[in-house]
């Protein structure tokens, strides 16, 4: 499967937007992603290892809850991670 990162998260993936990982579940995929880019870990994950609430996860366009770590994935799946950011 593949991760699509956007915005500020790309700062922690050497500005790679599309990142392929091998994983059978969503939880494993996230672990693989932060293993590949260790600087991404504190930004993406909270101190319990779950994706922070401020990030929104989309599996093939559908929203996935951050605690759905056992959600099964296939090779063709794509996960988008977007970050809520408000200023002004």
């Amino acid at each position, binding site marked *: 499967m593949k991760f699509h990162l*956007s*915005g*500020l998260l790309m*700062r922690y993936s050497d500005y790679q937007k599309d990142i392929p990982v091998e994983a059978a579940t969503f939880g494993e995929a996230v672990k693989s992603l932060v293993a590949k880019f260790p600087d991404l870990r*504190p*930004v993406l994950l*909270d*101190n319990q290892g779950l994706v*922070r*609430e*401020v990030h*929104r996860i*989309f599996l*093939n*366009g*559908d929203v996935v809850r951050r605690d759905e770590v056992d959600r099964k994935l296939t090779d063709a799946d794509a996960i*988008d991670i*977007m970050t*809520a*950011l*408000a*200023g*002004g």
Partner: protein
Amino acid sequence: MRKYGSNVYSKYQKILDDTRSRFGEFLTEKVNPGTYERDVAGSTFTRELMKEAADIGLVSYAMPAAVGGGGASWLEWGVALEMIGYLCVDSSFTLVVAQNHMAHQLICRHGNPEILDEIARPMTKGDRLCAFAYTDADGGSDPFAFSTKVRKDGNHYVLDGLKPIVAGAMLADTILVWATDENHDLQVFAIDRNDPNVDVSPLDPGAMRAGGFGRLFMSGVRLPAHRRLAASDGVSVAQEFLHERKITLVAPGIGRMLDIIENTCDALEETTRFGRPLTELKNVQSVLGRMYSSYVISRMSLYGILERMEEGLCEPLWDPWMAVTKNFIVQQAIELCQDAIRVLGFRVFLRDEMQVERYLRDFLSCLISIGTMDKALVDIGERTIHHRQRTKKLR
């Protein structure tokens, strides 16, 4: 007083009328005088004035009843702010009131009982005012690039850093601060301006000049544990807070837009050319029509988002429509001011007269940190693409 115009959304007329009845005299007799002078000098409101605003229930209007506030809902507060913005010619005042309310919201949501007694309850009486220091010297609005740091020291927390612009800082007793810990996690603290090693200095802003803007510098500020409002994920705390704040920021602007239209009409009616008032000119009527349309559409947008908030349909962290609505209204307000300038002629350059240029400056200041609006639009665009990809397959 003039009757508040437009019968759109008359179901909220009672709130509008009640707000005028409760706060109208205070706003027009106590706040409005001195607006021009405050703008020129860059001076802010006195504590006595803010206390009076609290005594009549304006400051605590929407603060939770559980801590002594008025308990109004988001919708009621938004509508009340619209009328307050109509009556109050000093946008800095509504800014200070709205920001103070938002900081109170955050304290009530995340504060421990000690903080509620120490800060939240006195705030409802106007005995304490609060500001929030989010924008960072290095990170700006990017929470993952903040350089303001916190470290634990026994049972205390020590803060170091600079928050370069804090609305209401010169008035505030308490300032909420976002700081990054050693795990790159964002925590939230309540500092007191009298805490040792806290330095608050005034700024000279180009707009909202009575808003009490200041710079906050912390050098080894040592806080007891109970002053920590959020131990982790301060980013989510901020996003929820900043989204809601957008609406309280623009709600008074709607009322201000109508007051600008009315004053523009009055001035044009009183100005004659060849014995006829300018309001008879078609180009003037066109501009006024455009201005009024901007106001009505903006008002409908505000009420739409207020109703969504009331019905619990706005996702606290993710709802893009609060940001889009705020941006839309601000852009409409800026164009409305430009239209007023277009038809009013030389008098808009006389700052102590029409004051339209001050309103324009104040509305322009609402575009600060608009880069995150661009980000929100990118997100909306990507979600639109995802949605279309899914629905196309279903056909």
